[in-house]
C-alpha cells in the first residue's frame, strides 16, 4: 500500500495522503503511549501488590493517562530565569522528533510500513542516536546541576551502549546479508533469530534497555540520585515531550526487537498463519513490552561507573565474539 504510494507522482494529493497517514500513525503511537503507560502502571501495581490506577475511567483506570496528559498540557509553562531559553525550548523537540522519525522504517506487517529502506536498520540506529543531543541540550540549558549531571550521564550512557547494540545486530546482518528490515523478517521464515543468535539477543536486550533509559539503566534521570536528571527543570508539556519520546522509543525498540529476533509478523508455527500478521506482531511486541516492565519492577539501579564498565568490558567483547563466531560458522556452513 505504502509501497505504491512511494512510487507515485509527487503532488498535493499524495502529500495529503502521506500527511494523513502520518497523523494516523502519530495517533496510533500516542494511543499506544497512553496505554503503555497505563499498562506499565498496572503491571507494576500488580507485581507490587497494589491495584494501580483505578479511579479515572472505570475499574481499570482506562482514562488515567489521558487525564494525566491533559493535566500536563494545561499546566503552567515554567522556564527558569537563568536557563538558556532558546535551547531550553528546543531541547524537548530535539528529543522527541527522532523518536517519531524512526517509526517510519519499522515494518509492522508485510504491507504496513511507511518507508521500506534498504538500510532500515542503519537508519533506525543513526536517527535514534540524535535523541541524546536533546537530552544533553535540555540538561545543559536548564542551568541546574542535577540536570547537567543527568545530561552528561545520558550522553555517556548512550554512546557506550549504542556500540554493543549495533555490534549485536551485526550477527543478524551477517546471516541475512541485508540491512533491510523486511528482508530480515523474511529470513526468519523457518527459524527466528533468537534461536540462531541467542547471545546477540541477550546483548541486544540489555543494550536496548540501556538505550531506553529504563531501570536498571535509568541513570540519566535516576530519581534517587539526581532528583529527575535532565528533566529536573522541565514541567508541563515540555516535560511531557520528553516522557513521550521515552515511551515512543519503547514502542520503537520493542518493535525492532520483534522484527530482528522474534520473526516480526510471522506466525509462531506455519499452520497458525490464518491469524493475521498484525496480531502476531502485536503479540510478540506485547511480550517484549511486558519484559521491559517486568525488569523495571524487579531490579535495582546499576551504578554509573559499573554501567560503563559493563558496557565496554562485558557487552562489547561478547558482541564482538558473537560476530566472529557467526562469521566462522557461516563460512563453515558455506563450505559444505
Amino acid at each position, binding site marked *: 500500500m505504502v509501497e505504491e504510494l512511494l512510487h507515485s507522482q509527487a503532488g498535493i494529493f499524495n502529500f495529503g495522503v502521506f500527511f494523513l497517514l502520518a497523523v494516523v500513525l502519530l495517533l496510533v503511537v500516542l494511543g499506544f503511549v497512553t496505554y503503555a503507560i497505563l499498562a506499565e502502571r498496572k503491571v*507494576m501495581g500488580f507485581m507490587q501488590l497494589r491495584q494501580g490506577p483505578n479511579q479515572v475511567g472505570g475499574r481499570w483506570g482506562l482514562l488515567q493517562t489521558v487525564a494525566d496528559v491533559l493535566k500536563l498540557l494545561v499546566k503552567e509553562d515554567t522556564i527558569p530565569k537563568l536557563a538558556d531559553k532558546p535551547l531550553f525550548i528546543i531541547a524537548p523537540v530535539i528529543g522527541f522528533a527522532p523518536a517519531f522519525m524512526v517509526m517510519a522504517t519499522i515494518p509492522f506487517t508485510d504491507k504496513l510500513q511507511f518507508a521500506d529502506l534498504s538500510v532500515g536498520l542503519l537508519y533506525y540506529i543513526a536517527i535514534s542516536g540524535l535523541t541524546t543531543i536533546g537530552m544533553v541540550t535540555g540538561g545543559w540549558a536548564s542551568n541546574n*546541576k542535577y540536570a547537567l549531571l543527568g545530561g552528561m550521564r545520558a550522553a555517556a550512557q548512550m554512546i557506550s551502549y549504542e556500540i554493543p547494540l549495533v555490534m549485536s545486530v551485526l550477527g543478524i546482518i551477517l546471516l541475512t546479508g541485508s540491512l533491510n528490515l523486511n528482508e530480515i523478517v523474511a529470513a526468519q521464515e523457518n527459524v527466528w533469530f533468537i534461536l540462531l543468535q541467542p547471545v546477540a539477543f541477550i546483548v541486544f536486550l540489555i543494550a536496548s534497555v540501556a538505550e531506553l533509559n529504563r531501570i*536498571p539503566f535509568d541513570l540519566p534521570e535516576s530519581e*534517587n*540520585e539526581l532528583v529527575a536528571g535532565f528533566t529536573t527543570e522541565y514541567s508541563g508539556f515540555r516535560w511531557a515531550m520528553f516522557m513521550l519520546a521515552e515511551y515512543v522509543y519503547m514502542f520503537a525498540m520493542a518493535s525492532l526487537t520483534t522484527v530482528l529476533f522474534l520473526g516480526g509478523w510471522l506466525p509462531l508455527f506455519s499452520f497458525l498463519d490464518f491469524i493475521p500478521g498484525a496480531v502476531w506482531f502485536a503479540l510478540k511486541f506485547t511480550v517484549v513490552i511486558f519484559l521491559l516492565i517486568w525488569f523495571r519492577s524487579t531490579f*535495582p*539501579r546499576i*551504578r554509573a*561507573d559499573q554501567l560503563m564498565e559493563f558496557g565496554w568490558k562485558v557487552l562489547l567483547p561478547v558482541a564482538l565474539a558473537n560476530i566472529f563466531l557467526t562469521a566462522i560458522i557461516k563460512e563453515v556452513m558455506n563450505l559444505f
Partner: protein
Amino acid sequence: MLRTEEMLLNVGPQHPSTHGVFRLVLKIDGEIIKEAKPVIGYLHRGTEKLAEDLQYTQIIPYTDRMDYVSAMTNNYVLCHAVETMMDIKVPERAEYLRVIAMELGRVASHLVWWGTYLLDLGATSPLLYAFREREMIINLLNELSGARLTFNYMRVGGVKWDAPEGWIEKVAEFIPYMREQLKGYHTLVTGNEIFLNRVKGIGKYTKEEAINFSLSGANLRCTGVKWDLRKNEPYSIYDRFDFDVPVQDGGDAWARYQVRLAEIEESLKILEQACEQFPAEGDILAKVPKIIKAPKGEAFVRIESPRGEIGCYIASDGKKEPYRLKFRRPSFYNLQILPKLLEGESIANLISILGAVDIILGEVDG
C-alpha cells in the same frame, strides 16, 4: 589530563533520597565528591527545651515524634530513665507487653529501612513488599495502643493498655508469616547481582573507626563488635530470652544490610518466646504516685533502639518536671561519620552510603 572544575551541589533538604529534611553540601568534581558537609536542624523542634516545662507523662507523646519509625523504643527509654531514678519495679505483664511492642517496632523499623534503602538503589518493589508486612505490624500496634505511629503507649511504671483479647495470638500468628516473607526478601534482593555490586565494599570503615565515631547499633555490629545492650546490659526482661546478636565483619553497606535482616529474625525469636511466656494475668501498671516526681539527682540510661544506642539523661530537682532532659539520639551520632565516608565517592554511592547508615531525621534533629 582534562582540566576540571569543582562545583557545589546541594543535596537536600528536599531531595528524594535524604530521608527527610537532611541537607548535604557537596563539593564535586564531575560525579566524584571532594568534600561533603552535612547540614542538619531543619526538623529541630526543641524537644528537650519543651520537656523542661512538662510533666514526665506529658513528655511521652513528644518522644513518639523523635524516632517516628520506632516510637516504642523512645517511649521506653524515657519511662525507663524515670523508673530507674524512682526505683520502680514494673509488673511482669507490663514488661512483656513492652518487649513485644518494642520488638514489633524493631521489625517494622528494619522493614522500613529495607524498603527505603532498596528504593534509594532504584528498586521500587521491595518498598511495597516491606510495607505490606509493616502495615500488619502497625495494625497490631494500633490495636494495642490506639495509634499507628505515635503510640504514646508506655507510662512510667507500666503501659497504658492491656493487650486486647486475642492480640497475643495474632502476634504469634504473625511471626511465622514474617519468617516466610523474609525468605522472599532474600530471594528478591539479597542474591541480586546488581544490588550486590551497589553495596559490597561501599562505605567501609573499621571497628576502631566505628567506636571512635560513637557509632552504635547495626552500624557498629557490621564491623564485628558483638555488642547489643539487650544482651550485654539487659534491661527490662531481655535476659529471659534466647537470641543471638548478629555480627558481620565487613564494615560496609553489605554487612549492615545483612546485620539488619538478621536482626529481624532475632527479633522474631524474641517475640516468639515472649508470646509463649506471656503471663496469663497481672498488673500492667506499678503503684506509682499520681504525679510523678523523680528524686533529686541525675540519671543516664541507654537501651538498644533499631538504630542503635538510644539514651535518656534526666537531671531532676525533685519536681514533677525534669530540670534537664537529654536524649542520646543514635541517628545523630551515627550520622557523624558520613563526611568521612563520602570523601572520594560518587553521587550514586552517596545514596547507598547514606541509606545504609539508616537515619531518621526526626531523631537527628531532636
